[in-house]
């Protein structure tokens, strides 16, 4: 028997569905008394109160962006529609992006209300469903596609790969960019795996569990470091780990930090897609000191992901084919600190040898950025007993385990 709560939720779901149908049929009277505008076929630069794109098109007149209308030709996939992803999707919607594909398996909860975008009356709805509804009402010119599932499981991952390689504005073409706005390592690694296999450019974003630092990172498979090339990079928060209290909580979050990171991410997306300014390879945000470290890191030839290594070979081959002067420019720089107006110098990490052997080498990183952990060099001699070979088949072993 359904409870009152369940029935209320069902009503909300159906209401949402109804609004969506109405919007698709005749956008002008969807949602009853609410004002929904009609679709705009061509972006206009005319400065009138009724033109939602006038301030964006002004970027052209001011010489910032050469061809702003191109924004409508791009398809962007946002994976994770939480504190960062929902705001990211809203910004792109308001900018008039061509198509948005949203992936998330979660539902809106009241515990999300310390973050932006979602509203209390949406509690219980799937995040992608609720987001699509809001975003469509903000800008009906954007095409939306939503997937309410966890991308890290086998079946969903196959579908996810299919959608990013065929979900372009023109069906069948790949998406132009994937944005990772997820909150866990497993999902980032899944996106990384898919993008390395497909050679798909993506941007990663993240906010630390203590909510006071974050980062964005551009990953061009084969060229810049992929997510598996090094242990996860983190922005040093300059908080003594010993004083960080973790009792009784998993993660903290702030609308501010998440909003800042979403802003940095979408700014980088616009610069990348529309070709203005310089696109950051890695940009960190340390909220405690208001410090924004930047760097860029090349792909690791010893990366554990073999598709990453394959993409690197491909990239090297393409580089070799290019005219010679360009090759000279490609000097071996592990870490480039392009902007250093504060005169920040690298402090060499001279740790004790034993400590190093136990923890593994630390990559050379600019101040303010570190790795979540280090991994020692792989040893051939395992420090324990390995599983013994047996004649038993998998079925036998499954049965044996079941009998225990």
């Amino acid at each position, binding site marked *: 028997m359904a409870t009152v709560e369940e029935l209320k939720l069902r009503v909300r779901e159906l209401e949402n569905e109804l609004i969506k149908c109405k919007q698709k049929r005749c956008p002008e009277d969807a949602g009853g008394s609410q004002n929904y505008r009609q679709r705009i076929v061509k972006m206009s630069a005319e400065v009138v109160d009724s033109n939602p794109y006038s301030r964006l098109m002004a970027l052209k007149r001011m010489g910032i962006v050469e061809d702003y209308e191109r924004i409508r030709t791009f398809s962007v996939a946002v994976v994770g529609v939480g504190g960062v992803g929902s705001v990211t999707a809203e910004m792109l919607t308001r900018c008039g992006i061509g198509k948005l594909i949203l992936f998330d398996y*979660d*539902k809106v*909860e009241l515990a999300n209300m310390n973050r932006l975008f979602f509203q209390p009356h949406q509690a219980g709805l799937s995040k992608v469903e609720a987001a699509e509804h809001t975003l469509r009402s903000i800008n009906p010119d954007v095409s939306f596609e939503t997937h309410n599932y*966890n991308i*890290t*499981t*086998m079946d969903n*991952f196959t579908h996810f790969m299919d959608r990013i390689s065929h979900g372009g504005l023109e069906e069948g073409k790949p998406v132009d960019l994937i944005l990772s706005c997820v909150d*866990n*390592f*497993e999902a980032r*690694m*899944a996106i*990384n*795996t898919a993008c390395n296999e497909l050679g798909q450019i993506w941007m990663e974003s993240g906010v630390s569990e203590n909510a006071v630092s974050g980062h964005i990172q551009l990953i061009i498979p084969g060229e810049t470091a992929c997510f*598996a090339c090094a*242990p996860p990079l983190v922005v040093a928060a300059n908080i003594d780990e010993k004083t960080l209290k*973790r009792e*009784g*909580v*998993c993660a903290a979050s702030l609308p501010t930090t998440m909003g800042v990171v979403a802003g940095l991410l979408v700014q980088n997306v616009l610069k990348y897609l529309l070709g203005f300014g310089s696109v950051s390879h890695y940009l960190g945000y340390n909220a405690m000191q208001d410090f924004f470290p930047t760097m860029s890191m090349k792909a690791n030839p010893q990366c*554990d992901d073999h598709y990453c290594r394959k993409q690197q070979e491909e990239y090297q081959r393409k580089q070799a084919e290019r005219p010679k002067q360009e090759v000279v420019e490609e000097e071996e720089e592990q870490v480039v600190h392009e902007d250093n107006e504060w005169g920040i110098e690298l402090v060499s990490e001279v740790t004790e040898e034993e400590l190093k052997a136990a923890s*593994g080498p630390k990559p050379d990183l600019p101040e303010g950025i570190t790795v*979540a*952990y*280090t*991994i*020692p060099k792989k040893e051939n001699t*395992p420090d*324990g*007993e*390995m*599983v*013994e070979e*047996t004649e*038993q*088949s*998998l079925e036998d*072993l*499954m049965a*044996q*385990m*079941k009998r*225990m």
Partner: protein
Amino acid sequence: MADEATRKAVSEIPLLKTNSGPRDKELWVQRLREEYLALIKYVENNKSADNDWFRLESNKEGTRWFGKCWYIHDLLKYEFDMEFDIPVTYPATAPEVAIPELDGKTAKMYRGGKICLTDHFKPLWARNVPKFGLAHLMALGLGPWLAVEIPDLIAKGLIQHKEQQNSS
């Protein structure tokens, strides 16, 4: 990182050889065999140490796992259903173990009842790819989590012993 008993138990779990995930066809079968061998050995070790505390089984493909885990507190046995999927990136990333019936009862959980592991677990797992398998996940992830959370949940009255619950 872990107490002496856990360390000892972990050192007695055989290490895995095959670095392969659920997307690799034949190699995954090989990995699965190793997973089962290690799990069987670990359960046998637990039984002989009088510390039997979980059972696990999987679907045919070995991509979805489910089972039971239990914890003895004040001579009473508290038993829970657990489940998890093998992520496509396994063994580079560990599965997220869930105890759905405890969802919402402790802050040390993510949505869906996925247990929140300590900061030590991820680096430890990453340093031991592909040698660590599901048996290690049980010993270093779920085991310590139950040992901390269950007594706390009992003390707060958030979980009750099932028989006591039925009789009352």
